[in-house]
């Protein structure tokens, strides 16, 4: 569960990521710097998780994102964590579209907080999701007029945000200083209010929430 591929064209950041992940017990199987190399690496090495910059040579457009999407089309559920200097709901939606999980989409700044970043990498490797808080904030802002969402209590909203980012009940309880049973109670209430079918599986639960927020 710890073979990782890194695709990043800036040498300093690539090197930094390699060191960071090695220090946390990952094995870096490849560190590439262009789109074609990335696609080849993803398909041939099938890493447990890959960390991909959206903008890569040769075109410096969304080369990395396209390579990740193409690889996931051939190998559904291949865990990919996409990093970018900016987040777009459009990209988040494209990444989540196949509904198979194992997806992360974070701002590059999140690397600053090593622990949280490594936690996100582990989550994606395990088939979960890691969405940037900014993406979630934009999604919620879009749904501001949505009736069921407006009916949530502030606490439930916080739990929903944390859940949409991809965190487990344990992680949410730690972050919001709540007991795990309280979090479970909140999630059950949220699911009831949004009319979603509750699920014990963390990942499936997150995908249902994201699909709900994205449906509009």
């Amino acid at each position, binding site marked *: 569960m710890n073979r990782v591929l890194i695709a990043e064209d800036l040498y300093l950041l690539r090197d930094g990521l390699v060191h960071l992940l090695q220090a946390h017990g990952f094995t870096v199987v490849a560190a590439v710097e262009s789109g074609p190399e990335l696609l080849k690496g993803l398909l041939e090495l099938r890493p447990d998780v890959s960390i991909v910059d*959206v*903008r890569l040579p040769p075109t410096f*457009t*969304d080369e990395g994102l396209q390579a990740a999407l193409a690889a996931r089309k051939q190998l559904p559920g291949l865990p990919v964590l996409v990093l970018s*200097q*900016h987040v*777009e*709901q*459009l990209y988040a*939606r494209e990444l989540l579209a196949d509904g198979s999980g194992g997806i992360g989409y974070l*701002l*590059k*700044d999140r690397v*600053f*907080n090593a622990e949280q970043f490594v936690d996100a990498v582990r989550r994606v490797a395990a088939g979960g999701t890691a969405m940037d808080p900014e993406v979630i904030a*934009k999604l919620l*802002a*879009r749904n*501001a*007029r949505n009736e069921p969402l407006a009916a949530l209590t502030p606490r439930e909203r916080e739990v929903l945000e944390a859940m949409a980012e991809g965190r487990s009940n344990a992680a949410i309880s730690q972050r919001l200083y709540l007991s795990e049973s309280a979090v479970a109670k909140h999630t059950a209430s949220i699911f009831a209010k949004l009319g979603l079918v509750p699920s014990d599986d963390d990942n499936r639960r997150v995908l249902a929430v994201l699909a709900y927020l994205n449906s*509009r």
Partner: protein
Amino acid sequence: MLRRYGQVSTLLALLLVQVPMIVLMAMMLLLSFALGMVFLFPPQVMMVRKLAELNRRRMRDWADVEIEAPYLPAPPPPVPQADGMYRSERTLYKTPRVPAWNNRWKWLMSDPATWRDEVWLLLDPVVKVGLLPLLLLLPGRGLRVYARWSGLLLGATAASRLAGQVSHLRRTRNLAADSQAAEMRRIERDLHDGTQARLVAIGMTLGAVEQLVETDPNAAKALLAKAREASSETLTELRRVIRGIHPPVLAERGLADAVRALAMDSPLDVTVDVQLPHRPEAPVEAAVYFAVSELLSNAARHGDARSVVVDLSANDTGLLVTVTDDGLGGADPARGSGLTGIERRLAAFDGVLAVHSPPGGPTTVSMELPKVLPQPWTNELGKLPRWKSVTVIALWGTAWCPTFPQGLVAGVFKLFGAREKTWFLALHLPGPWQWPVIVAMILLGVYMYVMAIRIPAAHDRERFMAEAAPGKPWC
């Protein structure tokens, strides 16, 4: 028919006004140049222009002939120098009156249209009298002929159109330069007040950490966390600035997806419909992106709209954008500075903006940018039509036959009195027909060769004229 006669009689009745006008105009011109009463010149020119404009309008209404006014645009008002003085040539003035008058004088004097108008006024009665029989017998045709004559002296020339275009370009260039400079200032301010200041703060915090790290490691640690937070904030700030310069999603995906991304970020329910065969140039994409962005935020802020439809489509090589919302309406481009800003941005690409926003809604803003998309390859004008190319090939293939064997060779045979007739048509005919047929054959052959060359040449010329700026060959 009766209406035509009414028009003709009006035209002729105008002579009663025109003739005294000519005398008056001639006197004013004489006084202003011979006696130096220059103040009479501008009103004289303006009066002639009024008459000419009246004639243009009549011809448009009566004879359906559009005559474009050829005048150069009026000079802009004088702008004071840094010291508050107005400059005209090498003289400085305290008030703008004299420089403005000088500019006006120069403008009227140097415009060829001024003098063409005067010539028209002088010759017009003569032409009317000359056309009298035609006007009375065939009023419809007579009016058309008269309209052509008017167009000859009152219409636009290639030079006047070019001059108009130059002044239009100069104005849009100034607008573009202005808005770009304003943009640069805004970016500079953002970077200076935001990003730069934050970086300085981070640097200072790190300096403090350096001093504290040995004496008070705990305080140093707290400061480091603060520095990290500040760097994160700086990045957020920088992202905002970058979005204002050129949104990354536009660079990565192009206009269609960038507008879709905008729609997703909007709190309104936005439907996007894009039908573009090609991507426009990057500056056009940016202008359209910012225009749509501005319109969406306008709809959300003022219009109390719930849903918006954004439609991007191509009209030949033009780009059409319409943004329709179901808000309260009543948007006024004269008041809203946002709309003016969009207009200014689009002006650089000859784009125009139209707002339809009745009170109570819905509001529709449409923008059109002509000639910003690449010409489609299946261009009808570019390629020779099929029947033309077949004709040209057939001509090249057969023109030799009448020219050489049936024409020249038969002629040589006839000249030297050869007995052989072989397959030469002329030699089989009775004696008096032989020479005319030989000459006709040669002429036919030469004509066929000429046509084979002329058809493609004429087509190329047509295409060239269609692509080049329009203009009349005379004057």
